[in-house]
């Protein structure tokens, strides 16, 4: 039995909660979350398997695929929850263009065996912008319930912190990639951010469920 990173349990917990609250998520922008989380958990397990059992040094390609899909998935959620048609279109355009940009980066700039840090910075910035847009719309509609009961508020908060926290590392990636201490530092920050991210997701699912309950009563 190999050792699983602590945050993977959080990701699994988020997946399980999304399954348990699926009835509440079904008709909403969050309906694909269980599949997404299943995918995340699966890739984490495959990644761990590759590093610890197969002793593969480089699993960048797996990481590249996952991050790209994550950004597309988050953009999809935003495209459904943002109200302004212009913002929606922006999110949808991103979903279409981003994978092509990543592909170009992998083909011509950073290479397939490398972590695609340039396009990750791009994606992170875009995620931060989407979060800001969502918060901006929240400001415009102050009567829409208390913030802490709005599921998408939690999801955006998680996404915002995660990407703000990762941005410095991704920007410094070229300097840090051969620096063991730097990487260690980063992964301790990153692991905590993952905990925050998936906790936010869990809270959001529970909010959504109580929202649906309060509506149906």
């Amino acid at each position: 039995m190999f050792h699983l990173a602590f945050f993977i349990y959080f990701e699994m917990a988020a997946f399980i909660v999304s399954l348990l609250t699926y009835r509440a998520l079904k008709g909403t922008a969050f309906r694909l979350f269980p599949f997404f989380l299943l995918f995340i958990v699966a890739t984490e397990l495959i990644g761990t398997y590759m590093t610890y059992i197969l002793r593969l040094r480089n699993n960048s390609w797996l990481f590249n695929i996952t991050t790209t899909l994550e950004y597309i998935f988050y953009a999809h959620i935003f495209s459904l929850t943002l109200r302004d048609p212009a913002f929606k279109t922006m999110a949808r355009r991103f979903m279409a263009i981003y994978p092509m940009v990543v592909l170009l980066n992998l083909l011509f700039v950073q290479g397939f065996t490398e972590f695609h840090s340039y396009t990750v910075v791009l994606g992170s910035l875009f995620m931060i912008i989407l979060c800001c847009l969502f918060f901006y719309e929240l400001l415009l509609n102050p009567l829409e319930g208390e913030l802490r009961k709005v599921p998408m508020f939690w999801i955006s908060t998680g996404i915002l912190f995660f990407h703000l926290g990762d941005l410095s590392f991704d920007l410094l990636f070229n300097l840090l990639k051969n620096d063991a201490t730097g990487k260690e530092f980063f992964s301790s920050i990153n692991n905590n951010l993952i905990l925050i991210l998936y906790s936010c997701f869990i809270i959001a699912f529970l909010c959504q469920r109580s929202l649906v309950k309060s509506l149906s009563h």
Partner: protein
Amino acid sequence: MPKESREIIITLIAGTSTLLLLGALMISFLFLYRNRHRKLLREREQLKLSYERELLKSQLEIQEQTFRHISQEIHDNIGQMLSLAKLNLSTMDPSLPDNLEQKIIDSKKLVGQAIYDLRNLSHGLSTDYIADMGLVRAIEHELEMVRKSGNYETLFESEGKSYPLDKQRELIIYRILQETVNNIIKHAASQKIIIHLHYSQEELTLSITDNGKGFDLTPLNQDASFGLGIRNMYNRAQLMGAGFKISSTLGHGTSVVLSVPVEAANTRT
């Protein structure tokens, strides 16, 4: 640890913490601003609700006063006249033609007066009559009823070109006027009631003055249970964004001034 590497790590930590702090600031700002905004909106909603409630109450009170007036009118005047007419009819004696003719004439007069009064009364029955007549006519109507109910000398002047305000505010103004006049009848022991209406470009000013015994205003500021009627008028004036002033001198009389800005206050919309 090589020096260069340390610098990079410090940059990494500094950058990450700055960005995270930024995120935290953003979220806190969102919370603060939204809570304040929500509170504001809720307060405005509350104001609107209490305005509507007071409006409804004013309407009911006006109706109540109208009904009281009508029942009194029917009992004191119309009923009297009809009874008299009936008495005339039942005491008619065909053997006394002189008397008979007079009695027929009297009865006709009485019945005619009763019909006239009834018709007048029924005008006041419609709940929209203030809006239909306009404030000036409504005040005249009110004063007419006051004069009928007792020995009062009333003076009413309207200055400036009159314009209609919205229905709701005219209703509240009218109710405040009624309440003030009621106070004069009840407490002032005054013979005179002077009403002055001034239409200016910015505001409508209504002043109601009596030359009665006046009263001490100090308990109004001290004892919250004193002067509920006056407090109520003040409250209603505030809800429609109007000023309400009362002044009184013992032995000389009391005066109430209501000033209503033409521009509707933002609580109503």
